[in-house]
């Protein structure tokens, strides 16, 4: 077939090809070959127009597969899309992909391609040895080879492939709120939207297809005197003109979540190209996720046609009856030349009528009903079409390669007896269309926990009653099992009016339009068509086309004792494909029911989960990726740190300077070198740290002091105005959770500091206790973390430097350790706290953050002569560890009490109230002598820096598993002490000072260390008190 001939495209004719624009031909490539289609085509319609039968290979047996459906339910025509590596999209349904110029796609399976697949040999000859569950029964011996087997099993798995490069496109989210969300813009959805919109409330109408209208686009009826497609067009125009209505085509409602939260995936540019085009030089998102909160949701999602299950029903050329109509009417494409139709209902006759009207040959209609008599049946008969009653296609025959149907075996069948009741007749044809009835799209309703219920009258599951509290939800049209157009339109108008009224949304019931109706005869329930051979011996009859699940597989599962439909599904993998069983599940259930001697509702239903159709990760992620993945929090001095070459450490969301490597002799310092230099600068001269990230909470109220006493482990009764104190906080289980210095600003006024990571949690901690347990205490808490910029000036020269910049009297006797003063620093009002986390003379300067850089730069302007050195968190850690100061979260892990930390001095046992954590300290486990306790460790070899996290043992000679007695929590090289040192927790450590412990490491070395006091430097604290 010539590549660009579009041999199966029908000549222009009124009423055909309404979706396509013949004036806009588009080039595309499939499996490396070039073709032509038209704007408005889907990839599937364009492939059919070009006579491409084999689109893909099947998952397990590698059988050739073609287009089956015309929408979201397509199981077979799965392609890999994208011309460039970064634009690859795996597993695109050709039936949902709009054609665009330059589109490039290939079947996801098959080597070298779907047409000439080598793997099919495996399917052909290995098939009999790959019954359902064969993995579980094999590859067990020898055990050592399993990982090798698995490698090959994995290779055969999967459909498309992930791109190898990062996505060039962006995706975004839009939060929407509305009174009424209508899902589906077919006849029921349009009517529902029209009804709701008349009330003036906010209405969102979405539909997954390229254009609105749904089945109206292929219907023959007239509505209010207009042909159905024209009525749809005018209605859409009316809605579009209303300010309170938002129309979202190409938008799929994918998940229906609690309390009427629905996610809509709008494909904004996927019909335009591989990547989103810029508009006026501006980027826009490739697709958008609308996060909709609706007061009322109207599900008008329609119904999917069910195929019949017969032998060979997977060969290209087997289609759904409705899909045949859609391709002819919407795209002016004939999916073949000679059609055999196999049906259980009247509606599907349209396929034959359309086929014939378009010039195709209808070989016969096999109707499973004994006496079909509806209006469409009569029309078919009148048109001279052969209708074979009481029969069905039992088998599709194909050419040698299985690339195309070449005949249909039709036989009279006995549905009740599940057997043939006559000889099979072979009808030559190239297309078999089938219809076993319709399955309402109950997926979305099921997401919220609403179980579908079976209705015998429509032979399908419909959404059940809303679970009691799921209010604001109604189902109309095909989704509710209402198929006839007049009933459907009237139902939508009336039902929606009533349902909205129940939700307090009042609209005037609009008059449903007048519709000319078509009389339909009753349908019959047929799912699995009997064959002349038993199911297990018949040619493969596919139930789930994507996962290659056959009727025999379901039968075998029941033979093997899988009686729950969930077991059957899991054992066979039915419904686990990317189509989530839209076509196959009910047929599969019917087969299981027959095997188990049950009815379909007894066998169960299927629980659908989001997504309705797959959504790419990027769309769900939205802009919360890459540089916007998560906030980076900056202090007021951040740009200075960047400009001065700081390396940053992530602490919570904050970026904190970690160390400032300098270029020495043209070479950048290592972290070790930089930290050694920074440490010595603080110990010998003066350093400055940006400490702005510490949490800061302003506490005001007459009961502030008592509140602190209840929250902290230590006492606050006597802290005088002007003084500061270190405090420790526990949870009520007695375990340390945070610490920090709190300052008494006034009798009723305190400023609490918390750890950087703990700031938000501690504010909430104070609030929860205040709001829920002690509301009688008069106190208010307000976060001032961001308001104050904090600079810790520390080192022997700190006073001299600061004196140059401030009016505050820094004399050691007038401004003592653990006091604060207010004054001016570098012209800026400041609070100065004389507290120290380094053990050196320290002043913590706090100014309003907008003025921070004035002060910071003034410090450096004056600091040169004192050797002022900026230092980062790593140096801060070394300096504090030398002093034995803990870091909550590093030296503690939620299992350490204040006493374990050796901080009895920080516990107010005699306070008049039972502060948080106190009671737990007397529980049996917290009183154990051998609890892990914080100690110092001095490696016997001075140059050894123990690994943080190294495990400690008393006996290094024991065999594995060894008895571990603790671990190293903090470990550094101290340039001051010129040796490695560590903080650690050791069982009973407080009583083991001087004892030796061992640390067996991964490299085979075992380090020895001595347990010492955790205070390595200036134990008297004389240096901070100068």
């Amino acid at each position, binding site marked *: 077939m010539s590549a660009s001939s579009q041999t199966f495209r029908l000549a222009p004719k009124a009423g055909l090809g309404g979706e396509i624009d013949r004036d806009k031909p588009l080039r595309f490539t499939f499996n490396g070959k070039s073709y032509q289609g038209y704007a408005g085509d889907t990839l599937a319609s364009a492939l059919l127009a070009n006579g491409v039968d084999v689109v893909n290979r099947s998952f397990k047996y590698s059988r050739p597969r073609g287009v089956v459906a015309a929408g979201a339910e397509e199981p077979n025509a799965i392609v890999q899309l994208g011309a460039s590596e970064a634009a690859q999209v795996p597993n695109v349904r050709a039936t949902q992909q709009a054609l665009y110029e330059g589109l490039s796609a290939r079947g996801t399976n098959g080597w070298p391609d779907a047409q000439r697949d080598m793997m099919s040999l495996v399917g052909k000859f290995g098939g009999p040895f790959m019954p359902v569950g064969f993995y579980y029964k094999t590859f067990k011996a020898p055990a050592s080879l399993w990982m090798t087997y698995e490698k090959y099993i994995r290779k055969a798995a999967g459909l498309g492939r992930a791109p190898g490069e990062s996505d060039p496109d962006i995706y975004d989210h839009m939060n929407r709120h509305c009174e009424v969300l209508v899902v589906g813009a077919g006849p029921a959805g349009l009517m529902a939207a029209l009804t709701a919109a008349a009330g003036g409330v906010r209405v969102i109408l979405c539909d997954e297809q390229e254009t609105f209208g749904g089945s109206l686009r292929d219907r023959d009826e007239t509505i209010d005197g207009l042909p159905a497609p024209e009525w749809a067009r005018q209605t859409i125009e009316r809605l579009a003109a209303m300010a309170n209505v938002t129309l979202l085509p190409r938008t799929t409602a994918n998940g229906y979540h*609690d309390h009427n*939260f629905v996610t809509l995936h709008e494909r904004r540019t996927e019909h335009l190209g591989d990547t989103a085009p810029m508009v006026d030089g501006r980027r826009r998102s490739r697709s958008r996720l609308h996060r909709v*909160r609706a007061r009322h949701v109207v599900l008008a999602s329609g119904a999917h046609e069910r195929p019949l299950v017969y032998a060979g029903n997977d060969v290209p050329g087997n289609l759904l009856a409705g899909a045949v109509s859609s391709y002819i009417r919407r795209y002016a494409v004939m999916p073949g030349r000679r059609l055999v139709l196999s049906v259980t209902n009247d509606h599907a006759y349209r396929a034959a009528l359309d086929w014939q009207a378009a010039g195709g040959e209808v070989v016969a209609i096999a109707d499973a009903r004994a006496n079909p008599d509806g209006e469409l049946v009569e029309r078919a008969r009148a048109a001279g079409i052969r209708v074979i009653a009481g029969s069905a296609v039992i088998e599709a025959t194909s050419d040698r390669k299985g690339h195309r149907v070449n005949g249909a075996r039709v036989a009279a069948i006995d549905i009740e007896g599940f057997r043939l009741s006559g000889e099979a007749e072979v009808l030559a044809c190239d297309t078999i269309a089938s219809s076993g009835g319709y399955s309402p799209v109950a997926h979305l309703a099921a997401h919220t926990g609403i179980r579908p219920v079976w209705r015998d009258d429509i032979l399908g599951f419909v959404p059940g009653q809303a679970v009691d509290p*799921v209010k604001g939800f109604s189902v109309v049209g095909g989704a509710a099992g209402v198929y006839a157009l007049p009933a459907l339109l009237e139902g939508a108008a009336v039902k929606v009016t009533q349902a909205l009224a129940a939700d307090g949304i009042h609209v005037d019931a609009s008059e449903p339009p007048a519709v000319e109706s078509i009389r339909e005869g009753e349908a019959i329930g047929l799912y699995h068509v009997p064959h002349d051979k038993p199911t297990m011996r018949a040619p493969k009859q596919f139930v789930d086309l994507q996962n290659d699940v056959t009727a025999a597989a379901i039968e075998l599962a029941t033979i093997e004792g899988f009686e729950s439909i969930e077991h059957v599904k899991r054992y066979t993998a039915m419904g686990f494909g990317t189509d989530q069983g839209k076509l196959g599940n009910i047929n599969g259930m019917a087969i299981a029911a027959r095997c188990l001697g049950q009815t379909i509702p007894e066998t169960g239903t299927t629980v659908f989960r989001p997504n309705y159709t797959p959504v790419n990760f990027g769309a769900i992620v939205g802009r919360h990726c890459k540089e916007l993945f998560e906030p980076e929090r900056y202090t007021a001095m951040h740009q200075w740190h960047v400009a001065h070459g700081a390396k940053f450490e992530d602490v919570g969301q904050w970026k904190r300077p970690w160390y400032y490597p300098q270029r020495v002799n043209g070479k950048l310092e290592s972290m070790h070198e930089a930290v050694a230099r920074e440490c010595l600068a603080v110990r010998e001269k003066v350093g400055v740290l940006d400490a702005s990230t510490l949490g800061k909470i302003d506490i005001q109220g007459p009961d502030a002091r008592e509140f602190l006493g209840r929250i902290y482990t230590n006492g606050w009764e006597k802290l005088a105005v002007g003084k500061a104190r270190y405090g420790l906080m526990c949870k009520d289980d007695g375990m340390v959770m945070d610490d920090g210095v709190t300052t008494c600003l006034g009798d009723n006024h305190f400023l609490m500091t918390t750890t950087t990571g703990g700031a938000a949690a501690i504010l909430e901690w104070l609030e929860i206790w205040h709001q829920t347990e002690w509301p009688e205490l008069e106190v208010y808490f307000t976060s001032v973390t961001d308001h104050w910029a904090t600079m810790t000036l520390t080192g022997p020269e700190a006073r001299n430097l600061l004196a140059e910049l401030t009016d505050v009297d820094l004399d050691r006797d007038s401004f003592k350790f653990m006091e604060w003063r207010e004054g001016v620093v570098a012209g800026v009002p400041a609070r100065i706290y004389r507290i120290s986390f380094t053990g050196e003379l320290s002043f913590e300067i706090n100014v309003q953050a907008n003025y921070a850089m004035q002060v910071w730069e003034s410090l450096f302007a004056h600091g040169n002569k004192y050797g002022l050195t900026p230092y980062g968190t790593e140096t801060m850690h070394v300096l504090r560890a030398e002093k034995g100061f803990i870091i909550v979260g590093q030296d503690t892990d939620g299992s350490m009490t204040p006493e374990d930390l050796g901080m009895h001095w920080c516990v107010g046992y005699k306070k008049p109230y039972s502060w948080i954590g106190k009671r737990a300290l007397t529980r049996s486990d917290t009183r154990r002598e051998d609890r892990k306790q914080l100690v110092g460790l001095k490696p016997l070899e001075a140059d050894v820096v123990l690994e943080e996290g190294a495990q400690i043992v008393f006996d290094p000679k024991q065999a594995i598993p060894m008895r571990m007695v603790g671990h190293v929590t903090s470990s550094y090289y101290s340039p001051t002490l010129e040796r490695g040192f560590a903080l650690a927790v050791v069982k009973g450590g407080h009583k083991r000072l001087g004892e030796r412990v061992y640390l067996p490491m991964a490299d085979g070395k075992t380090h020895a260390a001595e347990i010492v006091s955790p205070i390595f430097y200036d134990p008297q604290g004389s240096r901070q008190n100068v």
Partner: protein
Amino acid sequence: MFHIYCPYCAEYREEEEFHPRGQAHIARPADPEATSDDAWGDYLFFRDNPRGVHHELWVHAVGCRKFFNITRDTRSYAILETYRMGERPTVTANGPEAVPSATATLTGALA
């Protein structure tokens, strides 16, 4: 995703503004030191875990920062009512006699 009526902001807000904080109406023992180890363990760790009506504490964390109570069905996720701290629920699993006492206000602030 829940749509939660904040009794302080007096309107429905999205779940993302809130944090759940466990069971509501847990009173911290009035005299912890006089409480047995068992009772203290119960207070710390043993929570109601009903399949059905549950009274729980939430905080409008990104909003008014107030703690309040939600009565919710843990099967259907329906919110049956929300009420302020210090108030008592009107909906309970076993009728009004099962309403927790008004004095019991604390949270399970142990998370």
